[in-house]
């Protein structure tokens, strides 16, 4: 059995599954990373992913095309980011309570709207989701072709976000301003920039990415919306941000490692399901996240102004 599990690592299908599982986590983690870099912990992530999954799917279900679905999900995500900013940035309310409130609000209003849209459906209706695109030439490479180059457009888009977020954070004035807002907001103020505005922008961009992570579930990984389908992925993304030390490429590494582990537990369940109950396999991703946080905690340098509301004229 051990041998069969080791063989998985040389199985292209296993790595293709890993790539698919990593996508929603990757986008959500990048989104959270941008928010936290600006000094705001966004615990609304789980609810924003849920609402993103719902509106992306709904747009396509009601006749929009897939790219419109992505756009609508991003816009709705950004508006929940704005709502978060009104509470946590402009009013300076507790970021923890704001985030939990946004998560409960976004998911309950999502479920309420879904029930109004489809009052009594037992089997959730399906949409035509993103289809697999085989990249010419590259997809013919043995092993790597199947693992990396036979995915949906949304999957390639998700991975493209890593260099884009890296570029945004490290090569643009906005990225620099976001990082200073999270490290030393007084310095930003001294430069004549508006800390509250910069944090709001970061929350809106970050929340849009989270919503895309949710939309990936209903528009690429699956083709329908289910209750509770985000299933803690948002909380795992928060653990991954810490694991990644707020660096986009380390977030990619974390999401891939985590997804490989998740794909592994699914296969292990099939192999060892007769001896060990399936619930223990399902527990592993959550336990792994906690363990990863414990190991990352020692070397963690949180953005210095994380969780601290900025009030003009008050010194910290």
């Amino acid at each position, binding site marked *: 059995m051990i041998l069969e599990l080791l063989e998985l690592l040389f199985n292209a299908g296993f790595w293709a599954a890993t790539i698919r599982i990593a996508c929603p986590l990757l986008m959500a983690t990048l989104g959270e990373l941008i928010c936290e870099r600006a000094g705001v912990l966004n*615990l609304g992530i789980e609810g924003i992913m849920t609402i993103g999954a719902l509106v992306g799917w709904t747009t396509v279900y009601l006749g929009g095309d897939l790219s419109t679905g992505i756009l609508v999900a991003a816009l709705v995500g950004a508006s929940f980011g704005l709502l978060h900013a009104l509470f946590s940035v402009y009013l300076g309310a507790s970021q923890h309570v704001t985030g939990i*409130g946004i998560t409960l609000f976004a*998911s309950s209003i999502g*479920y309420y709207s879904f029930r*109004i849209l489809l009052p009594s459906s037992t089997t959730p209706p399906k949409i035509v989701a993103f289809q697999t695109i085989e990249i010419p030439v590259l997809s013919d490479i043995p092993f790597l072709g199947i693992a990396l180059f036979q995915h949906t457009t949304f999957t390639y888009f998700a991975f493209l976000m890593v260099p884009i977020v890296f570029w945004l954070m490290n090569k643009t004035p906005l990225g620099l301003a976001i990082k200073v807002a999270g490290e030393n907001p007084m310095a930003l103020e001294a430069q004549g920039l508006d800390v509250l505005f910069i944090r709001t922008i970061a929350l809106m961009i970050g929340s849009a990415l989270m919503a895309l992570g949710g939309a990936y579930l209903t528009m690429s990984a699956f083709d329908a919306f289910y209750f509770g389908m985000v299933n803690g992925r948002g909380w795992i993304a928060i653990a991954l941000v810490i694991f990644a030390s707020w660096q986009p490429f380390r977030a990619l590494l974390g999401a891939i490692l985590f997804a490989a582990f998740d794909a592994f537990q699914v296969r292990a369940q099939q192999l060892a399901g007769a001896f060990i109950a399936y619930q223990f396999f399902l527990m592993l991703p959550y336990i792994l996240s906690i363990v990863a*946080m414990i190991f990352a905690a*020692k070397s963690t340098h949180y953005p210095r102004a994380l969780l601290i509301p900025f009030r003009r004229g008050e010194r910290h």
Partner: protein
Amino acid sequence: MRLEAREQTPAWLPWIAIISSSLATLIFAAVLIIVAGASPIEGFYELFRGAFGSKNSIAETGATATPLIFTGLAAAVAFRARFWNIGAEGQLYIGALATTFFGTGLIQFAPFIMIPFLFLMGFIFGALALLPLVLLRQYLKVDEVVTTLLMNFVIILLVSYLLEGPWKDPYSLGWPQAAPIVDSGVLPQIIPRTRLHLGFAIAVSIAIVIWYVQTKTLFGFSTRAVGFNPSAAKHSGISVTKTMIGVAILSGGIAGLAGVSETAGLKGYLTLDLSPGFGYTGIAVAMLGNLHPIGVIFSAMFIAVIYVGADAMSRAIEVPTYLADVIVASTILTVLVSLVLIKYRIIFKGKF
């Protein structure tokens, strides 16, 4: 726009703030009812009839408030010390597991010993579920928000395993549920032939005890000091770690009591749908009660009215039951705004 700290808060302001935030929530709920194609006036009438209309509905509101008082206290106690325990949902289930382990035939006492014994076990195991996480926070700086949240998933999967496997009641006709609690462990009803049970009285008593502990004991003073300013507390000789451990034991333990009360009082046996998110709703209860133990009793009653009433309303005027969750979530947000406005005044001047 900027915020300026108020030098003094007028006595009427908190009342206005609470009333206007409730009003804002009701207006928002009315909009959602209209969107669903129903009449809000009829809706609110059905809501109040559903929550207060008969002896049964009042008892039902009390029965729903019971777990919310426990989980609300669990959140309030922790948040007051700025310990962010978002894991009351998992700790509730740990309390329910303890009740099932000890209360389904393992040990038998007379009811007046058996019931306190089950509550004690629920408290101990709920506290033990949170203890490692507070130690991780204090000694290794592992953020407790994420660990408590993730543990909820782990614990619920553990419950699912036990209910489908070793703890499954062979007489349950295939349903994943545990064996019933022995008669001596079942909480008696407060109003006969309703679902209102002794757990409600215990919840209210615990709230009063917590209020006493917070206002009259050294531990209560340390909790507030640590929550207000940990480094200042440390300099004045308070052990932050010891206080945090105490807070976690209290918070996890009280959440465990919710599990005992639901298992031994309301249902009589453990199922996987024992809690429809009472742990998370407890956060709203704690916020609305301004993290005050007595406030928690009233806010739990208020949210129970919304849950029981909205449930009746959604059946009567045919809107989705998720409306109750929307109302509770928007209550958290509107109360949050009013809490800020009690402490600060907004000045619209200069650059936005």
